[in-house]
């Protein structure tokens, strides 16, 4: 392999490779560590953690759909204290670069989570999963409400101070993604994670009722990739200087490249790891080679390249 600068930057943080796990698709790392050393990938984005222990939704929690799947986990997790006590030390020991994903039911809960994380060392960035129901506003998902999104990010920013990059993770289930993105960037997000799952449902034709225990679920996997690429492209067009962690159906090096060309500074791999425990390492290696094959000497040259070519041909 020829030399290529494969590193990427989100906020002030440097990562040696642009390939991350997707939140909720790598638990907190131990399980994947049995298949490859965690330090070899760009970084791990941990499962969204909340203040308290959560048991999550009833089963069935998943349904396979054409080239995709629905999940309805309901953010099962150990709570932030246990997470900080057990998972962060393990990941640090593995020399993994850590992006901690947080989730809350109120604006206040997000700030509380940020406060607990502020003093924890070894964290590279915080991903704020705002695709959660806001209990203070009739369960309306934060990410679907420009004002609520902004307030969550603003609260986290104020609490965390200026050091740690904040990545706001948005939902594609909105009329105007760009305006939500602008709002959270104005409120202090250093980067954006696009996209969370798309709301979907499967009805079991034998029981004749919704298949999932939680009725609706989040659609992920290759089925949603064109939606994710469009989202990244739109937001990058509007805010070319904001780093984006692109995700949604990436299952190969080519898919990762597509996302980078659309404007992502890095990619997260979610559902693909379910099909192949080592998917992320393969994607990382293949992406590197594809960039080299196309004559790029750095990843950064490729970020948003699909936009630049357009401008060039428009000029010509």
């Amino acid at each position: 392999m020829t030399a290529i600068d494969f590193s990427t930057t989100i906020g002030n943080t440097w990562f040696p490779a642009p390939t991350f796990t997707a939140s909720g698709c790598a638990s907190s790392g131990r399980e994947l560590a049995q298949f490859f050393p965690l330090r070899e990938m760009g970084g791990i984005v941990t499962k969204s953690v909340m203040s308290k222990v959560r048991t999550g939704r009833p089963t069935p929690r998943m349904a396979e759909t054409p080239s995709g799947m629905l999940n309805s986990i309901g953010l099962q997790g150990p709570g932030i204290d246990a997470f900080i006590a057990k998972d962060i030390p393990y990941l640090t020991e593995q020399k993994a670069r850590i992006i901690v994903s947080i989730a809350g039911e109120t604006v206040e809960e997000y700030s509380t989570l940020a406060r607990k994380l502020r003093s924890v060392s070894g964290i590279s960035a915080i991903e704020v999963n705002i695709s959660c129901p806001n209990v203070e506003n009739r369960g309306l998902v934060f990410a679907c409400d420009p004002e609520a999104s902004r307030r969550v990010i603003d609260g986290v920013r104020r609490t965390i101070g200026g050091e740690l990059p904040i990545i706001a993770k948005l939902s594609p289930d909105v009329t105007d993604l760009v305006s939500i993105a602008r709002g959270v960037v104005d409120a202090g997000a250093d980067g954006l994670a696009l996209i969370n799952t798309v709301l979907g449902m499967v009805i079991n034709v034998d029981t004749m009722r919704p298949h999932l225990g939680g009725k609706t679920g989040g659609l992920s996997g290759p089925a949603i990739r064109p939606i994710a690429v469009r989202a990244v492209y739109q937001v990058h067009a509007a805010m070319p200087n904001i780093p984006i962690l692109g995700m949604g159906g990436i299952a190969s090096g080519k898919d990762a490249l597509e996302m980078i060309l659309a404007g992502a500074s890095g990619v997260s791999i979610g559902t693909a790891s379910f099909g192949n425990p080592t998917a992320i390492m393969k994607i990382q290696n293949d992406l590197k080679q594809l960039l080299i094959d196309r004559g790029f000497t750095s990843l950064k040259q490729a970020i948003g390249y699909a936009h630049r070519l357009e401008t060039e041909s428009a000029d010509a």
Partner: protein
Amino acid sequence: MSLINKSAAQLLAPIVSNKKVGQYHQIIINIGDLATLCKPGNFVAINVGGDSSSMILRRAFAISRVSISSTFGGTMEIIAAPHGQGSKWLCAQGEGVVLDIVAPLGTAFGIPTEPVPVLLVGGGYGSAPLFGLAEVLNARGCRVDMLLGASTASKIYAPMEGKRAVNSMRIYTEDGSMGQAGRVTDPISEIIKDLDIAVVYSCGPMAMLSAITKITDSHSVVHQCAVEEAMACGIGVCMTCVLPVENEDGTVSMLRSCIDGPVMDGSKVQWDLVGKPL
């Protein structure tokens, strides 16, 4: 969580043979040295549908037996029921087709340190992993008795050579088309008493496992059951396959059946809470 899957590997493994047995397919796969790492109770996760498949998730199958043959090196056997799209695809693949597998996954059946009498109960294709288990138990000096049940004869999986390691084998079918008419759970209580059973091992439909737990609980006999929940990842990262299980302190947690299972302590599983919000 212990490092349960530390010997798991992803492998391209060719099918050695695929034979129809009743309503099931006995599929033997060449897995080389990995065979030495598989224990009774472990499962294998198999890609289905080929390269351009719309099915993105692996299918889980109990490893029914492994052997080291001189012709093929290590092989693994699975007993697959053609259920939906994915398992039907698998059952239709012939000799030489190369499967993408991850194995061995999950917990294994615990083997008693003393040679105690044990009862193995299998429902449908759930009997498959019990034969390999029987051999291990038998080698440990345990007296092994076996009960197999299914709705009908063609859903009983009971290979000839499987009887080698067992003291007795009784078959129950609901329609009476093979063995005795009735449910496999009917005689358990009596057998436990008669044979002074120390451990019941079971594998089969969740309703059967739940029913067995009721019986074993009332006899305070250990019940090791292999559960079957829909799994997206099979390796512990997705949290879809959870079951409510009682902790030491009496609280209930949602444990992953892929990595804290499939073999679980039946008495700890909160069968009544399965599928309910906690």
